[in-house]
């Protein structure tokens, strides 16, 4: 089955943030309280959060005498071999063959290993909830099941965010760079990072300039998490009491059907 991905092209982005709001709309995420701007330019909020799974960044970049205002996009990279999923002791995070890394909240025990394991610092925890979950972009897995594309890709006015088969998008990215070599920085971010991801970025400036994490190893993170995973049984015993209580609460909530109508991307 073909692996699907998102291609993000900063050259086409106008920074309108349709994607950021469409993500909130579809996934019914609350607005955050912000003040002025949370980062360079018009960026808001300051970072990804439990309610912000997609974030546009604004970067003033000067290279020689060339000035560019370049808009980046932060979100889950949907790694081919995701560190978060391999770190999860209960299989709450799962890599699907079709591309998305999805989250099963009914399985989550709230250990937050996924957060530590993610090289892109993506998963967030609902710290302010007494019944917290992990949250992150799901690649709109629920929309994919309906034959629709992710909300961010659908809403993007200029085709800066496109969705499709990963192989085809890689070809497309290479073609864009090759047909306009002076415009593009010659690198596809996500082609090899962390062993390859299902979110690919191309840009007119080096990715450091956009604040992207560029010291990510090319080897999958999963390979590094084995050591940590070995200690899990011992940790689990210690956590059992606390987490058991939390688990029960959540299960009860589900039995009451509280979340049944929630059309979010979490399964």
């Amino acid at each position, binding site marked *: 089955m073909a692996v699907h991905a998102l291609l993000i092209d900063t050259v086409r982005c*106008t920074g309108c943030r349709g994607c950021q709001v*469409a993500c909130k709309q579809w996934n019914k995420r609350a607005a955050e309280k912000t003040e*002025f701007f949370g980062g360079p330019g018009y960026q808001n909020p300051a970072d990804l959060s439990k309610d912000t799974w997609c974030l546009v960044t604004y970067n003033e970049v000067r290279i020689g005498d060339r000035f560019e205002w370049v808009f980046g996009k932060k979100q889950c990279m949907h790694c081919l071999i995701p560190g978060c999923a391999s770190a999860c002791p209960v299989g709450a995070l799962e890599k699907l063959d079709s591309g998305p890394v999805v989250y099963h909240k009914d399985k989550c025990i709230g250990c937050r290993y996924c957060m530590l394991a993610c090289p892109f610092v993506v998963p967030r925890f609902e710290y302010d909830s007494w019944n917290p979950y992990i949250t992150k972009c799901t690649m709109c897995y629920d929309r994919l099941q309906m034959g629709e594309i992710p909300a961010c890709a659908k809403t993007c006015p200029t085709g800066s965010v496109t969705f499709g088969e990963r192989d085809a998008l890689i070809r497309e990215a290479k073609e864009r760079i090759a047909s306009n070599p002076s415009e593009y920085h010659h690198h596809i971010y996500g082609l090899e990072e962390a062993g390859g991801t299902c979110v690919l970025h191309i840009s007119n400036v080096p990715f450091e300039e956009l604040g992207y994490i560029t010291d990510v190893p090319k080897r999958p993170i999963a390979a590094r998490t084995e050591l940590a995973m070995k200690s899990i049984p011992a940790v689990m015993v210690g956590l059992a009491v606390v987490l058991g209580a939390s688990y029960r609460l959540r299960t009860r909530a589900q039995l009451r059907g509280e979340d049944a109508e929630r059309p979010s991307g979490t399964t």
Partner: protein
Amino acid sequence: MEISRRSFLAATGGTGGSALLGFLGLDLRPSVAYASQAVPKRGKIFTTICPYCGVGCGLIVEVRDGTVVNIEGDPDHPINEGSLCSKGASLYQIHHNDRRLRTVGYRKPGSDQWETLSWDTAMKMIAERVKKTRDETWLEKDDRGRTVNRADGIACLGGAALDTEECYLLVKAMRTMGLVWIEHQARICHSSTVASLASSFGRGAMTNHWIDMINSDVLMIMGSNAAETHPIAARWIQRAKERGAVVLSADPRYTRTSSFADHYCKFRSGTDIAFVGGFINYALQNDRVNHEYIRHCTNATFIINPEFGFEAGLFTGYDESQRGYDKSTWAYELDENGVPKRDPSMQHPRCVFQLLKKHFARYDVEAVCSITGTPQEDYRKACDVYTSTWSSDRVATWLYAMGTTQHTHATQNIRSYVILQLLLGNVGVAGGGINALRGESNVQGSTDMALLFHILPGYLKTPQAKHGSLAEHLAAFTPKSNDSMSANWWQHYPKYMVSLLKAFWGDHATKDNDFCYDYLGRITGNLSHIAMFEAMYADRIKGLFCFGQNPAVGGPNANKEREALGKLDWLVVTDLWETDTSVFWRRPGVDPSKIKTEVFLLPAAASMEKEGNVVNSGRWAQWRYKAAAAPGEAMTDAWVLTRLVKELKELYAQQGGKQPEAITNLYWEYGQDSDEHGEPNMHMVAAEVNGYYMSGPDKGKQITNFTKLTDDGSTCSGNWLYCGDYVDRSDGKGKELGEGGHLTEVTHFGKTFKTINRMAKRFKEDPAEVPEGRCVGLHPDWTWCWPINRRILYNRASVDRDGQPWDAHRWVIRWNPTLKDGKGGWEGDIPDGGWPPLAKADGTLNPSSKYPFIMRPEGVACLFASALADGPFPEHYEPLESPLKNPMSPQQNDPAIVIWEPDMVGDPAEFPVVATTFRVCEHWQAGAMTRNTPWLVELMPDVFVEMSVDLAVRNGVKTGDWVRVTSKRGSMKARALVTNRFEPFFIGGKLVDQIGIPWHWGYNGLATGDSANVLTPHVGDANTMIPEYKAFLCRVEKEEVA
């Protein structure tokens, strides 16, 4: 329109979709184990149109169990194809929002709070106040003793966010009451566009349309930040780029549009004419002129009166005491038949082409850049790229918005675009034109419906005091041409005027009573937005209606306008929100007990909560549907107007008063009496706007085309331009009769007729997509556009004398001699009139043809436009407030502007920094909608000021610091955003700083902040009084205490 889930999914698959589903090839079965409960069931889908900017994006509203559960882009809509910007994507929170008004609010004089009223009580109270004020302030004669019969003490503002049918009802109700103070957003956003384009081409609208941008080779975005304020424009600009187009951005700030462009030029605010004058000169000096085009489509060959001249910054005829011109010398020289003389060689020293060349010779690159502050290298490159489109096989478009239109010389700014585009042969063709990007979802419709003091629906003229009868009015406004080749379309004015009066007063309007012409209040002088607030400030206006407009934030010199509101006896605000205007009495720094204005705040239905059409910037009238009920007791604006009319009819029938017949005889039958809530049927209104036969064998039948309208009272039409959008279906043909939401029925004179609502059509095929390379994107069967579904205005200028397109690879229309049994006919878009091409087969002029610009009496477009107040050619003048002396002439400012407050002009020594206001993607206009939408507030919660690093360092300011910006009018606080995107200008050896402030904020709402418009001056354009929002002086200081 309701579509089933099945067809919705099919629709989704239809667009990017059909490709998409195959492309995806998603087989999700292996994952279904985890997803057994996860596929949400889809609800009912309704289509709608975005209520924000003028792009007119389609959306689908998904309703489950009567509740809106999801709103996203309509994948079938040809303009946005499912995409949306941040504002469009947030519409869900317009419907689901705790801050929406749900009950009628009433504020007693001197009170500091709202009370709740029932609709019944409120509407009765409002009607009583309207009657009292109307009768008390009724003006029968003006100061010269001429009959004016008008309600001088009541004003009405707003309407650009209403549906077109509601705008029609609004103008009908207000004109019937005798109001002349009728204004709305169009005055302060694009009035200069209408004046400029109408005096040049004959119509005031955007010439082309959104999708057409894909056909351009060069796109100049100047005076517009399209990527932010019309984000879906970028979709088509992007596609043009993929075809190899070059995008130019000219702006004082490096914006999100500049980032998207290939080449950027900075320039100082208010120097647009110098900037474009240089382009014109570059084209003329380098002979980058499409000679055949200008000879055949413009007045370049016309000879001008020998007395005409230009010296020291003034055209002939200037009278300083009047601050105006005697324009008698700005005229064509006529031959013995009264037809303008021409020199086809364009060598005559007094022909327009030579005069133009002489006028703009002064605008060389050095002179221009010394005014604008643009680096010469950047500027030359822009000139070169843009003027490269002079040849027939290349085309450029000019996109602009408020950065152009809101200046003291705004009309002339646009005139400079007109001249440039005509010289290059870029008007009427695909991928060309002058594209006024309109900023409200229905500001085109509201302008067409004439919510402006000086016009009536369809750009007819408001009666003036000097015309005492209908005959005098018609004689004054029906232009004549002695040139048989000129279609002079406005010769039909009387038919449109009489049909309008019939629509207003029905059978009461007869030939014997001048079709009730006397019921319309007659105007004297200028009654535009600034004048209205000056009159309010001077206690001349006692009552004000505000329909979805928020002048406390959006008006110039906002402090003064807020104070003026306090002088009203009563104010009626109809809105979705508690706007800043509606709570002006509790704004910071005022004591509510001292404000005696009675305020009614009426809760209105939002765009997806009612039915009707909105007209986008490309003149597409798009029908939208009611998806869900409005919250609480909120009602449509149409209902409010209907109820008000009902109350007034009763009051005047019982008690009499001033000119009661105008009200009691008013025709207002839209099925409201048979609706359980008294809601008028928008189909009935649309049918009246289109028009129907009032007598004769077809009595009651919808009229199919405005050529059928008459001046004898046998037809009615609420707006002749819209005649053709809601037509009889009994003789319809082809796929119009296919299934769809556009098949309807209406009832006139007790008889029901089958009709087609063309505005609801959704046939997406684009016949343009043929292998011959015809311009793409016309989509003639998707909705309907005025006039008579012509998608590109002035398209007869896209062909040569033989009727063949200048560019065969992107043709709009062309003459095909084999059509109609060898008689020949046009194919492609609906041509500007069906006459044959100008030349016969032997090359001689065909006397049965007409010149291409049918709305102008000359028949051609005007390089030289004598209708304007401040000159037939544009000339650079400095803004009223400028740090520099005008280097071009001793005439510092536009000589024909009205200066309302000479003591309110800032001195550059005290206010050295140039300031401009601007808009952002995330907020909309005066902010009531977006500052109450949590997702958008998250993105931009606070007002800020953009400034250069240089200016910030000199003032000890860092990003995030509070700064105070002060002008002669007022002072505001904002957070500093220090950026490399703003650079100071070096002009004449002098450093000139500029700052920019978004103007969306006010004191009320979820997000609040100071309004930039407390800084802007009460000064307007010489032609339309559009306020100067974009260039004024201020000073910037660090504010120590937050």
